């Protein structure tokens, strides 16, 4: 039995009992989708269709459709890729690292955050896939498969290949972690469907629940599995963005060739991931009336993570500037001088304002417990983190060693379109998830309702 101090505020409010938890969460799966859900779905599908056209043209005509040029050979594609992968860091961080730290506030948010992680990683994967042009041959370039060249194998010394392994492993392990957590909840939905006589639901959720019955022996194994998976996923989360940062850090481009990249990228990933979790959950809790499960306290905790990671990112930005100066390398110095004062100064200042200054507002309790302010700042952070990647990638490239090859990057409709495509994909997936899957981990919430529910807290007093 877990004993908890009365000084801690209840994590679940509204005097819920176990049956209320099942009712509140399953109701969303059982009822017909609302009009607003259809509207949101329609918007997502339109974005997906417009973006789908951009993807089609890129594959049909080649990546010459993009705004890349000889100098800026990496721009929106990799910016979007890193941005989405970064967002995909919050889910597994919440469920794995917070599990190891026994942070019980994770329980109301881990399901949706993990779903977001999985969809974000799928979106991220679109960019490397699409940029290969003939993506049906991509497996031969990215995976160690025998081929007609003899076999000429993939290069295991390349960080780009490490990335293939890191992201596919991260996706696969996150998916398994997420699904393991879903099984007991699917069983709850299945049994409710059996009682209510809904045969189709009972059949579908019966398959999804893998014949789960909640036996003590299975629960005991389940807990071991969850703990070991958390232990495995924790270094995995940190490794993924470390390896993404090595795509840049192992090169010799001034502005990329720095050892600070791995920790700086990981902090930035957690920062943007939490911002996206906040954006999504603030809407989800409002629409699904989950205010008793995702309380202000949960939002506040996430905001605190945002202050911490935002400040780490801020220190990293300043350290980069300092190191450029201190290194005495004029190319390095110029790269950063150009970053701050060059033609992309507006991108640098957007990044600084959104990522370093905006989250500092969360030091005020009034702001970090205010839903509207949190929502706005979470979106600002998402924008800022996109600019961060844009700044790192484009401003480091656009002024080459040779001034004659200096160039600017202008995105075309197809650059923007593929970004839109991933938004369509992400929100379509999230909407389907929020309709057909339980958005809160019922089994975990039930396990803490006695120690941190409002009823028991008031009884103890």
């Amino acid at each position, binding site marked *: 039995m877990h004993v908890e101090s009365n000084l801690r505020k209840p994590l679940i409010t509204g005097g819920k009992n176990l049956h209320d938890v099942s009712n509140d969460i399953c109701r969303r799966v059982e009822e017909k989708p609302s009009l607003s859900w259809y509207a949101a779905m329609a918007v997502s599908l339109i974005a997906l269709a417009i973006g789908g056209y951009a993807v089609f043209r890129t594959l049909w005509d080649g990546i010459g459709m993009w705004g890349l040029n000889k100098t800026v050979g990496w721009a929106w594609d990799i910016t979007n890729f890193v941005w989405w992968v970064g967002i995909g860091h919050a889910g597994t961080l919440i469920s794995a690292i917070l599990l190891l730290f026994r942070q019980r506030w994770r329980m109301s948010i881990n399901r949706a955050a993990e779903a977001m992680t999985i969809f974000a990683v799928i979106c991220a994967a679109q960019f490397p896939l699409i940029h290969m042009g003939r993506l049906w041959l991509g497996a031969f370039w990215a995976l160690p498969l025998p081929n007609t060249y003899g076999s000429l194998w993939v290069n*295991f*010394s390349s960080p780009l290949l490490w990335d293939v392994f890191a992201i596919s492993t991260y996706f696969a392990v996150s998916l398994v972690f997420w699904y393991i957590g879903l*099984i007991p909840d699917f069983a709850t939905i299945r*049994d409710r469907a059996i009682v209510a006589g809904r045969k189709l639901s009972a059949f579908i959720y019966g398959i999804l629940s893998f*014949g789960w019955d909640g036996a003590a022996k299975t629960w005991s194994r389940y807990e071991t*599995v969850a703990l070991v998976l958390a232990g495995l996923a924790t270094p995995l989360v940190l490794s993924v963005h470390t390896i993404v940062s090595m795509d840049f850090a192992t090169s010799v481009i001034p502005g990329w060739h720095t050892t600070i990249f791995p920790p700086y990228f990981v902090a930035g990933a957690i920062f943007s991931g939490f911002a996206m979790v906040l954006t999504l959950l603030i809407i989800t809790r409002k629409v699904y009336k989950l205010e008793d499960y995702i309380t202000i306290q949960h939002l506040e905790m996430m905001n605190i993570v945002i202050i911490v990671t935002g400040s780490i990112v801020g220190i990293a930005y300043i350290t980069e500037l300092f190191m450029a100066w201190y290194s005495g390398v004029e190319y390095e110095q110029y790269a950063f001088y150009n970053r701050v004062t060059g033609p992309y100064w507006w991108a640098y200042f957007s990044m600084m304002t959104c990522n370093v200054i905006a989250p500092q507002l969360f030091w005020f309790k009034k702001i970090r417990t205010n839903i509207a302010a949190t929502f706005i700042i979470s979106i600002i952070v998402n924008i800022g983190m996109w600019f961060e990647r844009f700044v790192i990638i484009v401003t480091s490239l656009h002024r080459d060693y040779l001034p004659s090859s200096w160039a600017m990057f202008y995105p075309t409709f197809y650059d923007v379109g593929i970004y839109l495509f991933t938004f369509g994909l992400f929100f379509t997936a999230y909407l389907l998830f929020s309709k057909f899957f339980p958005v809160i981990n019922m089994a975990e919430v039930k396990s803490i309702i006695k120690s941190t529910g409002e009823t028991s807290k008031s009884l103890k007093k």
Partner: protein
Amino acid sequence: MKEEKNFLVGVYEDDSVLLKAISIIRDKGINIHEVYSPFPVHGIEDRLGYKRSRLSIAAFGFGFLGTCLALTMMIGMMTIDWPMIIGGKDFLPFPAFIPVIFEMTVLFSAFGMVGTFFVISNLKPWGVPIQFDLRSTDDKHVLAIELKKNVLGLNDISKILKKSGASEINKKSIKI
């Protein structure tokens, strides 16, 4: 073969009552078939006398397999089959192999452990759950006692269940 067996099923509302009840029932020498709960109840394994799961050992084994496979693959491809000079590095650039070794270790460990968990717990898409009471995935803890495995009769066990705090006691035949 599956055969129909008779069970006495005690329904409990609260996990701490359940934990005490398990001790009371086991002290009387009654064999408990299994307890079904909507959420993991901490300390239930000890009360039921279950041993600690060895799945973590399986995870280590599968992880080690992943490490070995990753090393074999990379050395086989880059050192033995087709050595190439890349950036002036060795034909066996071990530091460059570390990320892939790590990822494959984690991948094999996670999938191997979860696969083992599914197999030993009989979890599969076409799996049929053993259910004594459908409320056990909602808000009730369900304790099942197989009558044939116990010396005490139906009435005696019922009395003990009632005394231990069961809110309902039902008789149920189920094919296992």
